């Protein structure tokens, strides 16, 4: 369910979203971004890891759906911290909240902080995104 963008004041918390890094999802992502390094790392290490930016993209996906961003909204900046590798097949939950809101030059700027946690409740990803929305 999306949120009216006008209601996204500082401190607003989005409902948590869960998502899975299943094999098909990871394969589709790797093909889309043409990533050769992660598969090589997995072959060498004998572990099937999800690309860290896939974890971030899927965490953001749920957030964007919850925000109900209007067409034309763009990314201004992005921060990520990858706390640990995420294995293919893991299920995660993402949580996000509005950390800052301002308006300038016909754009609404929102800074949203987020984290993704594993099934034990441990944070595997933390991040902050700034989004610019034309007004």
């Amino acid at each position, binding site marked *: 369910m999306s949120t009216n963008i006008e209601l996204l004041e500082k401190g607003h918390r989005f409902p948590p979203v869960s998502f899975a890094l299943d094999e098909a999802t990871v394969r589709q992502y790797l093909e*889309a971004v043409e990533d050769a390094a992660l598969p090589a790392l997995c072959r060498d290490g004998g572990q099937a890891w999800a690309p860290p930016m896939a974890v971030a993209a899927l965490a953001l996906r749920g957030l964007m759906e919850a925000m109900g*961003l209007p067409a034309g909204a763009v990314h201004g900046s992005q921060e990520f911290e990858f706390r640990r590798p995420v294995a293919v097949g893991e299920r995660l939950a993402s949580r996000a909240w509005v950390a800052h809101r301002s308006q300038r030059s016909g754009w609404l700027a929102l800074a949203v902080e987020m984290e993704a946690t594993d099934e034990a409740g441990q944070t595997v990803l933390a991040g902050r995104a700034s989004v610019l929305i034309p007004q």
Partner: protein
Amino acid sequence: MPTRSTSETWSVGGELPALSKSLTQEKIDAYARASGDFNPIHVDPAFAAGTFFGGTIAHGMLLLAYLSEMLTAAFGRAWLAGGRLKVRFKGVARPGDTVTVRGKVERVQDEGRRPDADARSGRPSGRLFAAVECVNQEGQVLVAGEAEVRLDG
């Protein structure tokens, strides 16, 4: 390319393994399907033509995926376990563009011997900071920022 993650291997000024990608609308559409981000600014040429950008643009997260591939190639598991990335989007990539991601080590903080298992192994630890960017075929900087990884000897 073999991955490297030791502070002995990397020194200030060292260049990360740059890589280039050619962008097409088909690749942007494929990323939209993989990420679930179907913002029309990325996938609807008719809509995008009427916006500030005048046409479709690649997802910022697609460019970050290219940066992440470079950082995975450079630092291996260290990038997945403790990597940090902080970037600003300064320009847009469009279908037909060739983008290149590159980076250079800015500083390496030696944190000495760890007071835990690493101390027993005698391996050094520290953090490495690299300036990273994504540029287009004209050299215009599209994404710029800093990546950080933990070095575990």
